């Protein structure tokens, strides 16, 4: 069985060739790859052995672990049984205590330089790292050992990628990202609160298919997931351009799916593929459900994007030719012209749309 491919394994589980190719197509779509590459993905998956993966949790809420359970392409069952060998994951693994620790040390010893480490949660450095210890060892020392000997590390969720909520001002425990805690290692950041699990599976498949990690932006995020602004792919963009804004929760504009910019939506400054792949197998995403984007994949979003419900002061306005690299963490000068243009357009449209908005929903 050792020499069997993924497809062999799947077919023994009753997965047809057709379903397998469908899965490869879904992967290509998530990765924004042309369909001509589907055979290559299929070929790669058929050849590969199950790569070993370990999942480490530090200062976290297990939201990314919960997200993993929602994986659909492939499902978590397929991931854990067929595609990967998830040798350590505190939440789902059977053993505990010394037996669990053995599973982790076995991987570091037996698969040195060949396994993938996934980290969920930030790592506290203050006071010698006492704020997060597992089995008496600090998160920092554990991460250094496990990530330091891994082929690559995937930081899932904004806490692992950038420090996240534990690092929010005043950052009492000195929480930092994996990259800061273990300098010099190869890290792919998959931020989000939580990460979108389809981006995690796509990253793994990218590696299995191309033998390399996906191209990353200057914040360490794959372009395939973070290359475009939410605002530019937003299903409500036409309402922004038309100056039709939600002004109150439940008003007529809100019920008709107008733009949430005035309700504090951070979509104009956020870079992620939420509008395209959505969550829970395409069921919804925040804007579709009537709530603005919080910009949860942005470094320090808890500090820089609050108050969450206050309108962004400087929206870059029109144009889709922007990336996080150009705009930067704050708002670059390139946005200034757009702001002015938008302010004028906005003032005009605000006047026009006033009569149309929300009385019906506020009857009582």
């Amino acid at each position, binding site marked *: 069985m050792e020499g069997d491919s993924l497809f062999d394994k799947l077919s023994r589980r009753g997965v047809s060739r057709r379903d397998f190719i469908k899965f490869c197509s879904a992967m290509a779509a998530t990765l924004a790859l042309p369909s001509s590459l589907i055979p290559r993905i299929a070929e790669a998956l058929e050849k590969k052995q199950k790569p070993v993966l370990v999942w480490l949790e530090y200062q976290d809420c297990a939201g990314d672990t919960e997200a993993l359970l929602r994986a659909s392409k492939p499902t978590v069952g397929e991931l854990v049984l067929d595609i990967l060998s998830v040798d350590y994951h505190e939440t789902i*693994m059977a053993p505990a205590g010394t037996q669990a620790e053995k599973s982790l040390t076995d991987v570091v010893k037996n698969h040195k330089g060949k396994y993938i480490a996934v980290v969920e949660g930030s790592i506290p450095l203050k006071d010698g790292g006492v704020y997060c210890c*597992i089995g008496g060892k600090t998160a920092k020392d554990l991460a250094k050992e496990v990530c330091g000997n891994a082929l690559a590390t995937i930081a899932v969720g904004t806490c692992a990628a950038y420090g996240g909520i534990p690092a929010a001002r005043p950052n009492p425990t000195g929480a930092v990202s994996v990259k800061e805690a273990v300098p010099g290692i190869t890290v792919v950041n998959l931020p989000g609160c939580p990460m979108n699990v389809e981006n995690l599976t796509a990253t793994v498949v990218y590696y299995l298919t191309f033998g390399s990690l996906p191209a990353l932006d200057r914040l360490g995020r794959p372009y395939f997931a973070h290359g475009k602004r939410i605002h530019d792919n937003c299903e409500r963009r036409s309402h922004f351009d038309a100056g039709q804004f939600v002004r*109150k929760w439940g008003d007529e504009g809100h019920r008709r799916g107008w733009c949430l910019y005035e309700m504090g939506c951070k979509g104009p400054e956020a870079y992620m593929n939420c509008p395209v792949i959505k969550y829970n197998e395409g069921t919804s995403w925040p804007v579709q*459900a009537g709530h603005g984007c919080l910009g949860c994949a942005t470094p320090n979003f808890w500090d820089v994007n609050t108050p969450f419900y206050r309108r962004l002061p400087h929206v870059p306005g029109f144009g889709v030719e922007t990336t996080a690299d150009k705009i930067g963490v704050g708002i670059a000068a390139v946005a200034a012209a757009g702001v002015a243009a938008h302010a004028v357009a906005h003032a005009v449209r605000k006047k026009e749309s006033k009569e149309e908005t929300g009385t019906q929903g506020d009857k009582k």
Partner: protein
Amino acid sequence: MRAVENALGITVPDNARIIRNLITGIQYVQDHVIHFYHLHALDWVDIVSALKADPAKTASLAQSISDWPKSSVSYFKGIQGKVKTFVDSGQLGPFANGYWGHPAYKLPPEANLMAVAHYLEALDWQRDVIKIQALLGAKNPHAQTYLVGGMSIPIDPNSQNALNAGSIAFIAGLSGKAREFVEKVYIPDLLAVASFYKEWAAYGGGVGNFLSYGVFENDTETNTANCWLPRGIIKNKDLSTVHPVDHTKITEYVTHSWYEYKEGDAKAKHPWDGETDFKYSGPNPPYEFLNTDKKYSWLKAPRYEDMPMEVGPLSRMLVAYASGHKRVKEVVDGVLKKLGVGAEALFSTLGRVAARGIETLVTAEMLPVWLDQLAANMKKGEFRIHNGQKWDPGTWPKEAKGYGFHEAPRGALGHWIQIKDGKIANYQCVVPSTWNGSPRDAKGQKGPYEAALIGTPVADPNKPVEILRTIHSFDPCMACAVHVVDLAGKRITKIKVV
């Protein structure tokens, strides 16, 4: 959110109440099933033993306890084949180094195979049914829809961008699927497994005090006691009296926690006056064990009238049972009768596991009721989802304080807030796992986990599956370290609870 609503005197619209009930309801159902199959079952189920099962006998067993349509011989044969392939691959992943073959595993191979099949089925089921929460709250996990004053999901039967008739149908379909699995798979499996582990009705009792804030509001008053699962306290396992809950009687100690209070460690503080100032005094890492005579935990020790309290499904079901809740009483009595045990069996590890299943069933039954309420509001043109009177912080008083009660799946969750000049002056959360995982207090009283482990037999200290059974039965929130100390104070084993 509810603490702020309480501080500012905000009442939410009826639709917000209903949507919150639906989101919490499906969360209970999904979370409890995941807990049973994916976080707890392997303490009771030996996967490797499933390889020895006879698929035909497994099918007979499954058919004898439920009419779930999948239970055929070929189905179980297929599952067994998958497990064999997986085991033969030599890459056991998260199942490597498990306690397989441990003498504490009591299920026959057929029951193990049935449970493994349902472990896999539940993985697919949970992904599907939780879409109710994604529809109402944008995504799961981490719904993004809760607002101070209501919810952000609009309602309008004549819009494609709001909850409409299609949404009602979507939720109805998935809640039916949720309920069917609970009735036909989870509950029969729970009873089947429990019948082999009846001795666990004598272990894991804990502190004997149970607290529930009440959940699933029947009216829109903030922190209303008018809840479908009632609010109350049971003291010292006495089901004859349900005591009322007064939030001012809740305090937290830091005597054995790595914090310091300005007034010293001897006195507990109410969360409104709570302080969270770190003062680590444990050993320098890496360390092997902690000294429980000193400070040894990052959790504070919450107490009610100076008593430790257990929280969670068992507390909610006991409070409901003792309050005479009709449906809960029916199901609890039915389960006790099936297992042939008395009500005293509820105060145990097994009671905790059973209570979670009972709660799942009764909650799944309520999903269509709340959904009907939403549809009825929609029908009469009641679309309000948010009370915006206090949305602008300019409308707030200079100072305000409030508290918010909620019952998370794993237990009582309270938030306390002080607001000054439109900003948070103090915010304290007392969460389920601090109640249950509480370290000792100034009087040396143990918290529920610690108390529950006393008297638990451990056959092999290096493979302490028995300890996991009790700790996992609480559904602990965190990947945390619990240090087990025997009566002589000597460390016997170190357990990572996951």
